[in-house]
């Protein structure tokens, strides 16, 4: 979790240098959800997410170097410099892909789960998506299909309350809630504090274990907060945006999942030790960043690589 945070902080720090020419949707503040859920995954599971993808890429086993390299448009990036921040992939033990059109990732996870069930494989499909996906038709089709076929898929809604700059209040009727929508398809559904990594992990672990043996879909909604702007390295209140207040930001900063986790760790480790861990990670990340920024770019002659049909 800390490694993800420090990686994204470093992206923010370096973004203005214009060497990472790809739109970044940073997930600062939302790290606990993918870290908690991914702790319950095993080899060959399939994980899909959308544009705010760095957290899930790293939490599911993607390397810091291949993320940085992709952001720099290197041929050694996760997607060879063809995908950018929103189209990341890795096959390190499990399979991960992010897509940039809302809702696609939901149906992809159901598809992987379909293959797993057809093959009697003990794997699960997992999709991480934001609250705005509830505005797309594809999620209703996907929940319905997953329920009809009892597919081993976990729908993880990261409800951060905002779609770009639109608050939930303007996008959802007062008397409706997401969890009951999922339940209306006969899907077991849960709500969890999205900023408490241990709660998320301890919820996910037995549930995922169970659906590997008894395939069926699950819905987990984790309430959280996006600390940075929708796209880019800044904080909204620092760049003069008024759609949310600094007070609201500060309130959620207090609930920062990393801060909360550190409090718990202090029962077992000293401040100095935790600082040292953080420093070591920072140094490691810095080194990976410079290695990635110098990594080879594709040749213009490679424009058509993987472009053809058949």
């Amino acid at each position, binding site marked *: 979790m800390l490694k993800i945070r420090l990686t994204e902080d470093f992206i923010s720090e370096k973004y203005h240098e214009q060497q990472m020419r790809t739109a970044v949707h940073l997930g600062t503040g939302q790290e606990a959800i993918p870290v908690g859920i991914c702790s319950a995954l095993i080899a060959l599971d399939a994980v899909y997410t959308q544009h705010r993808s760095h957290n899930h890429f790293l939490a599911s086993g993607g390397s810091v170097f291949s993320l940085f390299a992709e952001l720099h448009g290197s041929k050694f990036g996760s997607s060879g410099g063809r995908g950018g921040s929103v189209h990341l992939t890795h096959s390190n033990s499990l399979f991960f892909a992010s897509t940039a059109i809302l809702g696609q990732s939901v149906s992809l996870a159901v598809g992987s789960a379909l293959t797993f069930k057809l093959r009697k494989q003990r794997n699960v499909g997992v999709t991480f998506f934001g609250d705005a996906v509830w505005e797309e038709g*594809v999620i209703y089709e996907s929940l319905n299909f997953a329920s009809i076929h009892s597919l081993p898929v976990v729908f993880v809604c990261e409800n951060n309350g905002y779609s770009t700059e639109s608050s939930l209040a303007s996008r959802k009727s007062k008397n409706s809630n997401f969890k009951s929508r999922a339940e209306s398809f006969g899907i077991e559904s849960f709500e969890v504090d999205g900023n408490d990594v241990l709660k998320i992990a301890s919820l996910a672990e037995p549930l995922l274990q169970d659906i590997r043996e008894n395939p069926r879909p699950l819905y987990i909604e984790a309430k959280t907060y996006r600390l940075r702007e929708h796209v880019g390295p800044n904080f909204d209140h620092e760049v003069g945006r008024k759609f949310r207040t600094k007070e609201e930001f500060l309130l959620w900063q207090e609930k920062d999942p990393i801060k909360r986790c550190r409090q718990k760790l202090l029962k077992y480790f000293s401040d100095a030790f935790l600082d040292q861990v953080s420093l070591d990670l920072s140094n490691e990340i810095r080194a990976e960043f410079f290695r990635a920024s110098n990594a080879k770019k594709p040749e213009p002659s490679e424009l058509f690589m993987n472009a053809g049909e058949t």
Partner: protein
Amino acid sequence: MIRNLSFSAALSEGLVQAMDRDKSIFVTGIGVDYATGVFGTTREAFNKFGKARVFESPAMENAITGICIGAAASGSRPLLVHYRNDFLLLGLDQLMNLSAKWNYMYGGNAPAAPIVVRAIIGRGWGQGATHSQSLQSVLAHFPGVAVVMPTFPEDAKGLLLSAFESNSPVVILEHRSLFDLLGNVPIEPTKTPIGKAKVIRQGTDVSIVASSIMVLEALAAAEYLSKFDIDVEVIDLISIRPLDESTILTSVIKTGRLIVADTSWVSFGVASEVTAIVTEKAFSYLKCSPIRIGLPDCPAPVAKVLEDAFYPTAIDIIDSVRIMLKRDDITLDFKLSEDTFKGPY
């Protein structure tokens, strides 16, 4: 061994043979497990492989396309069938924003996730504006997805077999009016390569490049024109993307005249693309302007008299040749083959 089979029986045979050889293939889409099985094309597969591998999907064209892609990424070989290609528009996000780009935008680092989509083109019998479109140029506009249109039964089977071995998505557009067409089909699983056109009839005076059912119209026109000592070459495009430029150019360089007959709208369509390629690459060989034949710029009507005015036939092709060759002696007393279809579709 070669037998006479209908287009639909050839599709069915190809599917069963492919599923026999490749256990990862499954079939889904609305009504694939019905007793009538998509006009007889999926029933035998259902009978043989059961509901585990041939199962219908609810009306959810968008998500089912994404589900097929995800299933493919994890190792399945999905076949998605649409009773009409018009319904495929609901899944276009998944097909074009994701499937077509999958191999490219993940830099070849994600396992290939190819899907095969069969979609049927309707025509006539009052199906109207939203059940008789022909979407090949919409689909073929996007790099990364192969778009094929079989005319003859052997290619219906052969293209399906090829599609299941592709590493990128393949859309097979099948014209409903061809399903009862009989033709020679090898019993062996013989593939038709994607990306290759076929010269169906050799000729020296004019090249007619046609797609799907317009190939049959072109052959009928060619037969009629032979009575006037006009020697027509007919090319069955078979593959819209990738387009077989070299077969087209070789023919036009020989004849110096080009007519393109497509099942969809002329504007921004396949006929326009083929004409543009020939004009760019073989301009000096052209003896006269090419002619494009296809649908006029309005949706498909329902009334029979309007349908007759809307759809081009062999007569339009004959008339185009007459104009091109300045042969006013060519009469237009061509009798169209009788439409024996009893409906409903």
